[in-house]
């Protein structure tokens, strides 16, 4: 049979973002593939060269809308490294808690997105129902549902209230009970398991060579987590461990993300216990010194990195973003080639697409 190229995108229910996966099919089998990106490119790195340092925080929020908090966090970390600021201890704990809340919200969005892909609308409804609880927590913390603008260079905008901490503990208790429902619905569903197990093997060597990070890498059995290997904020004081699965298939990537949600709950509980009292913000200088600053952290999608060059003015000279999904997407041909067309949505959904950070 003659081979032919198919465009899956830019408007396709599989994409979960705005991109185009071109696949060459021989009958039902994918023989070649090529991701086409750039539909959301807005020149982010060039634009921020014309903004002052505090003005970039809301821009960083809009870099990846699935996990906007972590991106403003990594930006503030990089600028603090440039300005050599020491952040108060309480602010570090609040940042870690917000980070993990954002990780849960982002993973819930991923779970909601793969549900309809694999033919299960109920999991979409369940996951979005619990995501609203975390949106409520963020809303009472900083006033916004999605783009928070909460971190500041040298701390966070405002302190938490005792009521917020009470609500947080209640939400986590409630969420842990609801996690069992998801697992009942997915892990014990034979159809789901058949569509995920043994699909799209990505060996540890391939994953490392392609630069894959985050849950996709840990799903290949590599114990790498920036929170553990290059700890930032207060992660080394907290009681946690990275979630690793050795199976290298789609189901392992799914399991890693589900375990990470549980682990985030554990981290937040531990951080709430150890959180000291004190100020949450120091005043940063208006003008950054000449030099460079770098920060990396564990985004819900992998390792995110920002590298900022200051030239003594109130605006950065250059701001480089290392986006985790941009690199992970290069592994898409390796995973997709050789599988059936019907498996493409479950493979691509399972690496958690976010195009805002990829195209920048």
């Amino acid at each position: 049979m003659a081979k032919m190229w198919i465009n899956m995108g830019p408007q396709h229910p599989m994409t979960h973002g705005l991109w185009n996966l071109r696949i060459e099919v021989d009958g039902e089998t994918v023989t070649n593939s090529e991701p086409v990106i750039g539909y959301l490119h807005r020149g982010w790195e060039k634009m921020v060269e014309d903004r002052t340092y505090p003005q970039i925080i809301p821009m960083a929020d809009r870099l990846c809308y699935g996990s906007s908090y972590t991106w403003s966090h990594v930006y503030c970390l990089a600028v603090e490294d440039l300005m050599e600021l020491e952040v108060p201890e309480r602010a570090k704990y609040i940042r870690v808690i917000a980070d993990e809340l954002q990780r849960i919200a982002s993973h819930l969005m991923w779970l909601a997105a793969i549900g309809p892909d694999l033919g299960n609308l109920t999991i979409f409804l369940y996951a979005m129902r619990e995501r609203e609880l975390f949106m409520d927590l963020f809303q009472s913390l900083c006033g916004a549902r999605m783009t928070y603008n909460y971190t500041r260079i040298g701390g966070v905008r405002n302190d938490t209230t005792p009521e917020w901490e009470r609500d947080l503990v209640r939400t986590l208790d409630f969420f842990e009970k609801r996690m069992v429902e998801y697992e009942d619905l997915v892990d014990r569903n034979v159809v789901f398991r058949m569509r995920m197990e043994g699909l799209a093997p990505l060996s540890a060597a391939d994953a490392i060579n392609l630069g894959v990070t985050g849950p996709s890498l840990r799903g290949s059995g590599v114990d790498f987590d920036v929170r553990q290997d290059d700890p930032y904020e207060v992660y080394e004081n907290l009681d946690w461990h990275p979630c690793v699965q050795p199976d290298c298939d789609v189901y392992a990537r799914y399991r890693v993300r589900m375990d990470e949600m549980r682990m985030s709950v554990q981290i937040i509980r531990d951080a709430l216990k150890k959180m000291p009292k004190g100020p949450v913000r120091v005043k940063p200088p208006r003008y950054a010194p000449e030099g460079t600053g770098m920060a990396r952290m564990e985004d819900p999608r992998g390792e995110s990195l920002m590298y900022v060059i200051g030239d003594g003015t109130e605006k950065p000279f250059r701001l480089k973003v290392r986006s985790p999904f941009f690199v992970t997407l290069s592994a898409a041909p390796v995973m997709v080639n050789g599988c059936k067309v019907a498996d493409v949505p479950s493979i691509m959904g399972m690496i958690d697409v976010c195009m805002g950070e990829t195209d920048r």
Partner: protein
Amino acid sequence: MDLSLFPNAIAMTIDEFKAWSHEVVDELGRSSGIKRLVDKATAPIWSWAQRNSLHPLHFGIACCALEMAAASAPRFDAERVGVVYRSSPRQTDVLLVNGWVTKKLRPALRRLYEEIPDPKWVVAMGECAISGGPWYDSYNVVQGVDTFIPVDIYIPGCPSRPEAMIDGFLKLQEKIKVEQQGTFLDD
């Protein structure tokens, strides 16, 4: 209507005859008032059906797409006002633009708009789709979706909350109710 062609009708090609006969029927309906009568009688039924089953295109662009998903989730439940997402443009009647439109996306979006059958409406959701928003000085972002397709409803916010989106669709329902398009949609 060019009635002077009437004696020559038999000598026309088939395409010419089709166009000409369509025009004759249309003109007869218009001049005799039948068309207006039918429109007036059917418009409330059509507008009731159109405004209560708005099917937007399932096309997530950027941040507002997550709020679009949240609006169809259990807490906000946009389905109760008839908003159901369809993945094929042939099955939809609303183009919901929820994000910035770049130069690479613009031809694809224009084509999606053309693929939606009439009657169709366009909703611009969020600051980026309305006017470029935070990317006002970007070299690659089209400053507002209304520069190349006609927009009916603007929903402000960055990103718009799900309540705002549902409110925008209620406004669109009011607009459809006022427009009162009848069976003959062309006038």
